Each structure stands twice: as C-alpha cells, then as structure tokens.
C-alpha cells in the first residue's frame, strides 16, 4: 500500500521531504467548514503525516462519501485525484479503485453518518475483504451537514442541542472492524496531533484496510453540555493507551526505545510503530480480546481510549486474494486485455 520509493534522510521540520516535495504539495483548497470544526484539524494531520512520510501525492486517490467530513478530501493533497462520491458508498467505491489500480494509496475520509448509518453494511464488507486503503472516520456523533441530527455513533444518553436524548446503543466502528477481521484499527481525537499522525503513518505502511476512528467534535451542532462528543467532554474523557510513534522504514537513526518500556510493531514495509507505556501500564494491541473488552468497557464508561487498538499482520489484502497482476489494470495495454483469435475460435468450437 505504500508508494514510497527512495529513502531520504529524515530531519526535524524539514523544508522538503524525501521526495523533495515541499509541504505545499500536500495542501489542498481552503476549507469551507465552520471555524473550529474538528475535521479541519484532521485535515492538517493528514497533510503533515503524508508530507513527513514522503507519500507521492500523484499516487494517491482521495475518496469520500457525503458530509462535512467527506468534503475535507478537497482540503488536502491538491495534486491527488479526489472523489467526493455519494452518501455511504465510499467503501465499495474505494474497493473499485483499489482493484483498478494497485499502485494507488487510497485515502478515504468519511463521517460517522456516512460510515455507521447508511454505509454500515458496505463498510463492514469492505473490512471483511481487507481492501487496501486507509479509512478515516471523522466521528462527531452527529450529521453535521444536515444540521446536527444524531448519528449511530451517538452514545446512549447523549443529548442533542434541542434537548432530545439518545436512547440507542452506540455503534462502535472500531469494535465492528475488529469483529470483521480488520488488521489495523486505531482511535484518536482530532486535537491529538502527534498520536493522529503516528496512526496515519502506520496506516500508510499497513498493507490492508486500516480503520482510524477519530473523535472530531462538531463545533456548531454537537459541542454543548450533554454532548459526549463536545470538545470539553472529549478532552475530559479520553486517555492514551500508549505513547505512540512511527519510525519510517527508511529511517537511519537507531530506534531508541527502552526495551520493556516500549512495544515495537513491525510493519510490512519495514517501518515500525513504537508504543511506549503510559504510567507503567501496557496495552497489547495484538490481543483481539483485550481490544474488544477495552472497547466494550469504554462504552459503559463513556470514555475514549485512544491509540492503536488492534493490529494484526499477515492478512491477505483483496488484491492478493485475487492474484492480480501487479501493474494497474487501469493502464494495461489492449493486447494484454484481449485473448487471441485462436483462443476465441477454440471457444467457438465448444459450442458446435
């Protein structure tokens, strides 16, 4: 899934990255979201992480559904093809893109409405297929673009601006993704820039579906008292599972973790995710049940545990399952797309 090619020396705040590109090559149009919207922070994190990682913007496809969150695909990577599609269908659309061109890095941004309401079935089936893509959920617990109704990720007991209380069980996209066999599942908060960046970079390095659920408050419709997705609430009710860092495969520095204090996850491309203990307690993101248990507890506690929740290497992504030729199908020359006339006539003979 990574499209990076040449190694380059990492540096702190470099002017250009290893592809010799400036940060501006990773920017998009100016945002038209509300001032202070959580989604805009995520956009910045995407820009920075892809710049840092040195992803080639011309080898990225940006995908989204419909919603405020989905609009953001226009606000980063102006040099990448983007597709703001229809509500709830980003997952199968991305599947088609992944099949058409295996060389693309597919970055999808979606909303909680887009993913967990209308798109739930398609989302889960995409996860099940392990479609190579980064699937970012900008989760504000409501429908921003249609003016703030509850979405399916609203917590039981959460209150709308107008006073209604949500009676329904929350849908936790992380838990469901794990249930469906996803090999890379993270949760973060739009304001936790460092963690978010590490998770995004790890997702770039992950070869199958990577799901990151980012709590991203809607300042206009879901930032009041009683909301469990307001800036205030989230800040007071979240905790880091670990101190997460991403070391790219082309890194030259020695990894300076203290064994016992840090867990290291090796990615398929040689990059590493390091997870430092917090307050001495260690969370094991490779234990499915730990992960599910944690998420279930989180629902009861109405608390956001953030970080890399689950990681499992070695699950075949869809293109490998299908034994596809490595070049993009999209640009295979005509002669490779049409069997010979002899083949054709042989087929005809079968019907005689």
């Amino acid at each position, binding site marked *: 899934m990574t499209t990076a090619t040449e190694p380059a020396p990492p540096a702190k705040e470099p002017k250009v990255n290893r592809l010799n590109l400036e940060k501006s090559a990773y920017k998009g149009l100016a945002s038209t979201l509300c001032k202070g919207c959580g989604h805009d922070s995520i956009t910045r994190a995407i820009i920075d992480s892809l710049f840092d990682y040195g992803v080639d*913007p*011309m*080898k990225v496809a940006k995908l989204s559904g419909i919603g405020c969150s989905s609009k953001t695909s226009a606000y980063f990577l102006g040099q990448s093809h983007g597709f703001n599609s229809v509500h709830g*269908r980003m997952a199968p659309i991305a599947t088609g893109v992944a*099949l058409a061109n295996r060389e693309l890095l597919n970055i999808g941004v979606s909303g909680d409405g887009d993913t967990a309401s209308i798109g739930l079935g398609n989302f889960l089936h995409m996860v099940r297929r392990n479609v190579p893509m980064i699937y970012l959920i900008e989760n504000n617990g409501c429908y921003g673009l249609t003016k703030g109704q509850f979405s399916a990720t609203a917590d039981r007991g959460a209150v709308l601006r107008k006073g209604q209380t949500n009676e329904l069980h929350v849908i936790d996209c992380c838990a469901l993704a794990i249930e469906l066999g996803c090999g890379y599942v993270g949760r973060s908060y739009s304001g936790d820039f460092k963690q978010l960046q590490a998770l995004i970079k790890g997702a770039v390095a992950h070869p199958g579906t990577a799901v990151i659920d980012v709590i991203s408050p809607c300042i206009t419709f879901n930032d009041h008292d009683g909301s469990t997705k307001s800036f205030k609430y989230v800040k007071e009710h979240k905790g880091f599972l670990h101190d997460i860092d991403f070391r790219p495969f082309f890194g030259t520095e020695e990894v300076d973790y203290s064994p016992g204090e840090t867990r290291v996850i090796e990615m398929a491309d040689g990059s590493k995710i390091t997870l430092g203990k917090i307050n001495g307690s260690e969370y094991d993101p490779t234990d499915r049940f730990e992960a599910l248990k944690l998420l279930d507890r989180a629902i009861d506690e109405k608390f956001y545990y953030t970080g890399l929740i689950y990681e499992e290497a070695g699950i075949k992504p869809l*293109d490998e399952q*299908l034994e596809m030729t490595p070049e993009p199908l999209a640009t295979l020359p005509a002669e490779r797309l*049409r069997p010979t006339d002899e083949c054709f006539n042989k087929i*005809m003979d079968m019907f*005689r």
Partner: protein
Amino acid sequence: MSATAAKTDAGLSPVVDGTVINDVVVEVATANGTGSQSANLILMRAIFYMGIPVSGKNLFPSNIQGLPTWFNIRANGEGWVARRPHPDFLIAMNPETAEADINALQPGAFLILRDSLKGFLKRDDLVVCECPFDKIVAGIVKGLLRKKVVNVLYVGVIAHLLGIDVEAIEKSIDWQFGTKKKAADLNKTAFRESLEWARENIPSQEKFQLQKSDANEGKIVIEGNEASAIGVVFGGATVLAWYPITPSSSVCEYAIDYFDKYRRDPATDKATYAVVQAEDELASMAMVVGAGWAGARALTATAGPGISLMSELAGLSYFAEIPTVIIDVQRMGPSTGLPTRTCQGDILKAYYLSHGDCKHVLLLPGSVEENYEFTMEALNLAEQLQTLVFVMSDLDLGMNYWVTDAFKPPTKSITRGKIVTAEDLENGVEFARYRDVDGDGVCHRTLPGTPHRDAAYFTRGTGHTDTATYSEKPEDWKNNMDRLVHKFETARSAVPAAKIETAEGGSEIGIIAYGSSDLAVREARHILARDHDLSTDYLRLRALPFGAEVDQFIRSHRVIYLVEQNRDAQVAGIIRAERPEFATKIKSVLHYDGMPIDAGVILARLLKDGSRENGSQ
C-alpha cells in the same frame, strides 16, 4: 391436426396437408431439479446436428427443485424458431401439470404420456402414445439414478416419431456429457432401449418428420449470457463486480470461468482482471463506479431489482461522467415479479434511471451474437462517452438456447476514449476536466495515478465548473447540464444504428421492434407477406438514444407498429416524448405475460387493424 386448428394461430402453425418436413414444436413438461434439462438439450442439439434450425426455450420456475418446468423446442427448416405457443408434440412427465398441459393442446396434437399419468387424459382428439417409462428405466438402472435417466427415454420416443437421426442423438449425448463417459454410455443405452421400445410399440406417423439439412453449417448453439460473458472477456473488461440475481448470474459465472482460462498472464499466471462478488447491488455498482473512475473497464450484470438499487450510483456515473457498464438481463417485474420469466420491462426505467434530469445510453441486443458484440461495444462506448452504458438483454436471450452463426473474433479494437496522459501534459496539452474542447460534449479525463502534477482533478456529484471546481452558480449548472444534452446527442450517432429491412418496393407500414422480439417479428412479416399479401418494412432498434435513421424510417411510413414486451409501451413513450411529430403514428403491439413473444401476437394485431381499415374503406 385440422386446418382449423392451424388457423387459430393465424398461420403460425404449419397447415398439415401431407407431411410437414422440418417444422415442428415439441414441448416437454417436467418438474425442475429432476435432471430433465440434459435430456431436453440432447434432443435439441440432435436436431441441430441434423442441420435443422432449432431453438430451445426453458420455462422454469423460481425454485430449485420440484416445481413445473417446460422445455419448448421448435425446429423449422426455414429458420422460424421464435416461440410458437401450441406444441405439435407434448411430452407429459409431470403429474402436477399434466391435466392442464393436455387440455391446452390443439386437437390432433401428439401426446407422449408417461403411463402413470394417463388418469389425466380426458379428451379423445389427440394422438396419444402412452409410454411405460418407469418400467423401461427399471430395466436399465437402479436406485436414484433412475430419476435422472428416465428423461432420456422420451428422447427415444420422440426420435422414433419424428425420425431423428440416431447418430445425431449419440453425438449430442457425447457433447452433453463431455468427459463423463460413463454417464454418456448409460444415456446412450437408455436412449436406444427406449427407441427400440418405441419402434415396437408406437406406430410411426407421417404428419411431422425431421430430415437432415445443411442449414447449420458454421453455426453454434449458445445461451445469450454465455455470449455476453465472452464479450466481457474479449472486450477487455478489467473489473467485474456483481451480485447474484436471476437471470443475470450466469453472465458473471461464465465470465469467471473464461477469465480464469484466458485472462491470466502467461508468464506469471496472474490475473489481468478482478472479479468481486459484492454484498449487494449498491456495492457492485459502487465498485464499478470506483473502478471506472480509476481507469478500469468496469462492469456489472444484474436484473430489475438490481437496477432499482443501482439508481443513485447510475446518476453519479452520468453526472460525474464516469465510464460504467451495466448488463441488465431483464426479467418480469415490477418488484420481485416473475424472476424466471422474460420481458422488456426495464427499458424506460434504465433510460431515465436516477433522480433529476438524466438519461443513459442503452444498447439493445437482438440476438445472442449481439449479446457478445454489444457487451464489447458497451465497454468501448462507456469510455468514449464517459458515461453509463446499459446492455439491455433479457431472460429469453440470456438463458435460452439459440442457434447462431459462430461469432467472429472481435474486429473492433479496444478503445479508451479521451484520456490525457502525463506525456500529453508534459507536451503542454491543457487539461480541464469538464470543458468541451472538441465540440462533441465529451471532455477529456486523466486517470488517478497519472504521474504529473497537473493531472489531478476533483470528482464530485455536486455542481461544478469546467475545471471541476465546486460551483452553485446558476450558469455553471445550466452550462454543464446543456453540455450533457449535447453529449447525449453525440451518443445518437455513436451507438449501433438500427437495422432496417424493407419489403420489395417498400411498404407504408413500418414495424419497429428491439431485443428478443426480432425473430417473432420476422416470422410475422413472413406470414403476412406469404398468406395475407401484406408487406411491411422493419426497423430493429439497436440502441437508445435512437439515431437519425429512426426518424427517417418513421417519417417515411404511414403507420408504425412498435412491438414491445412490456405493458406500458415504454419505447413508444420515449419516442413520443422526444419526437412529438411522430407520436400519433406509433401503434403499440404489447406482450407481457412472461412468455417470450411469438409471431401470433404481432400477426393478430396487424390483421385486426388491416381488416378494420378494409372495413372502413
């Protein structure tokens, strides 16, 4: 069989006067899941091997096992092998339908009756051949196999009665069982025993006989869905996403087999295609949209309910101008309808599919050969026009057996439409995604992943300028929508033109039809000319939007009979809407009971109108 009987279908059945050579309809009534299908195909193919034009239509239930099925074989030396409703021979194997089947026969018809069913026979105007099939089969095999093998016994009886060539049958059995030699041998034995029995016990008849002919040189027998699948594989499709639904599933299942055999890289054995069975039709169409956007030649196959579910994405494909192809193998709707019955009920729906102002390009294959050709053509047109292209097949074409000239290897090359490459950009080509540079309404596109910093554009289903930026400006919206109309006009001459056949000297009566109605229309024209001195011209529509030749045809005829296999005169409605000046010229001939149309429907209407006109003159 009396001449009266023949008259009831307006000349469709042959007038029996002496021996009718090579013109007969045999219907087999069984229950599905009993293995009768292979016996039916053996019979049909044997007639094919005798060189006689033949067709086989399978009327099966929406069920897996046990419900009534009919197989209708029509052999006709002149090639009139559209459905003919009244069989000359009925093979009655199914107790559930025996009574009704027998009662529906024309007087004088032949009845091959499984003897256990004789209780259902309550008329004496038929030629009845009671056959102890169960007894015969008991002497051949044991156990469960009997149920299967019993079917080939009726092949023996009918072979005897019609004089079907024994070699042809054996060749046909070999073909049917392929490498399964044991099964073939068993069936041959059973067939021969039954033939023997028939020769000894059933008097031969002289009314209908089949004789070897040479009409099938260079021909093949094929289902339309398999033809479509060949079109998929040779049309250079790269992504096929589908969801099972009758009667379209076998398009994809055949394609999977052909892909696997013929579209793997010889060096690496890797696939130059991808097939995904999606979780539903929303997903399969979304995958096609995503793949088409990213540059694949992508398609799906489905039927009515799938079309409905794909509506929203169809609109996206139209408006964002993404090449996609849908093969709609039409079955009887609305709703779940009759999943195993045929119709042409989705035409209007597909043409206008999705909310808002949008229209789609429809190819209308009228033969299994066109199933093959139009599938390839659709993949080209979708990319050339950057839009959704439908191939509107139907269950009759798709799942029945058709004798046709062997298809020719593709003659048209794989074309990709207007794609701007990195090289083009390097050479200074200007790129504006939705700008009509060429004046045909079709713009240029780049593919995601094009390695050039000016290649990218942003695709959306919302209003946009010609450089693909978001816009709510009234004039941007209107300009874009008008360009799409212009593009649709371009499509009129890009799609396959209608085929026109004129009577000698021409006629003032025009018939328009499309799709699987073709054979029935031609037969009706033939009978009208032969028996009623009524000559007609004929235009077979092969695509929507229709081209100038259609205007010309309608304009130059006094009256147009538009034959459709739907209730609501769907294509008539489209023509009337787009060409008000022709609206009153069009009379609809409609057939919509789930059976493939037969010439009688058309005959009856034209003759009725003819006599009315004569009466009023």
